[in-house]
């Protein structure tokens, strides 16, 4: 019996369409990517079910690294207030900072303060990119007789007078509670009783009260 002749089909595939899709996706991800600015401080924030996005203007940010050392910064969009803060600290503490030293804090993006007042002058002599790998002592907070963060917060509060100041605390998972306690103490002494903790969002656990509540109320945001 003669075998039915199967027509030989070409195995060539037109890859044009696939190529199109690949580059479409590529352009999407290129445009959607927001590179993290290189940070001298690396902080892994804890997760929470809260979904409200952290604000970026009028922010006084207090950062705690994994060793519990405390740093202070003001959002980059508030340059005049940054200037006010460093001016106020300079006069209060008699640090004799030069204009260039103040500029290090005021003009650099994501600049922060990570030393006691006594070392502030030499700290500001260095540009932020020179600080990589340098171990900083952090702002003293643990001891209530020498809580320098209190003065920084006070300076920020008066710099933002007449505006709403958003107090944000960004802490590392591994920071110990006493440094957070010191931060709270400094904020309380300045009557800053409402503040926000920066976290990375996760979904509420299945079957929890919150999840049931969200289902019944139909809302999605947790604030």
């Amino acid at each position: 019996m003669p075998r039915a002749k199967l027509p030989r089909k070409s195995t060539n595939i037109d890859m044009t369409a696939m190529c199109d899709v690949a580059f479409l996706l590529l352009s999407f991800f290129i445009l959607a990517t927001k590179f993290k600015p290189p940070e001298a401080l690396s902080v892994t924030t804890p997760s929470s079910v809260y979904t409200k996005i952290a604000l970026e203007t009028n922010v006084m940010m207090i950062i705690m690294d994994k060793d519990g050392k405390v740093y202070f910064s003001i959002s980059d969009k508030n340059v005049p207030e940054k200037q006010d803060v460093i001016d106020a600290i300079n006069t209060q503490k008699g640090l004799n900072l030069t204009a260039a030293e103040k500029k290090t804090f005021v003009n650099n993006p994501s600049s922060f303060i990570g030393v006691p007042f006594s070392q502030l002058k030499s700290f500001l002599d260095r540009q932020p990119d020179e600080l990589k790998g340098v171990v900083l002592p952090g702002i003293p907070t643990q001891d209530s007789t020498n809580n320098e963060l209190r003065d920084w917060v006070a300076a920020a509060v008066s710099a933002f007078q007449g505006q709403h100041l958003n107090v944000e605390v960004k802490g590392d998972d591994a920071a110990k509670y006493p440094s957070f306690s010191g931060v709270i103490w400094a904020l309380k002494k300045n009557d800053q009783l409402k503040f926000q903790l920066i976290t990375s969002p996760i979904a509420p656990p299945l079957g929890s009260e919150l999840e049931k509540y969200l289902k019944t109320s139909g809302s999605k945001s947790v604030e």
Partner: protein
Amino acid sequence: MAEMDTSGGGGHKKGPGVKKSKKLSTRVDLTPMVDLGFLLITFFIFTTTMSQPSAMKLNLPKDTDKPDEQNKLKESAAFTIMPGKNDQVYYYEGLDPSKLQTATWKTIRDAILDKKRRTNPDDFMVIIKPDKDATYKNTVDALDEMKIDEVKRYALVDITPFEYGFIQKTEAANGIK
């Protein structure tokens, strides 16, 4: 393999006497280009940060010495949780720390919900007292737990040496260093 046909529809007719030049194929092998495309896609997928940081609100009461401004707390409605060393949690009901019990972050939810069910919702209050070995993550987890369990009244308070003593005893008994 993959090719792109760009040779057109056969071309136009040449006039007489025009010598036909040899047609070179204009097909391009697209495989390396697709490879590169997907490689870059993978790179951007992994580096993209889609989720923005969220903010957890925390309101503190003002410190006051006047007894009439302080919040009253019923002993029967109080529930204290104390995050400690090595991701352990200790808790007790009422105001007597000697009734301290040990839990983990997985079991503390049931303990809170159990107490919540047995208590008048208007009085129920959770007090969070992280000890000095607790991490910041433990503290945030405890605050997050309040949201997850829909606990309306809670406070973040410093631990007393008396309570810390009980935790240390329990830790010694459980062999936690």
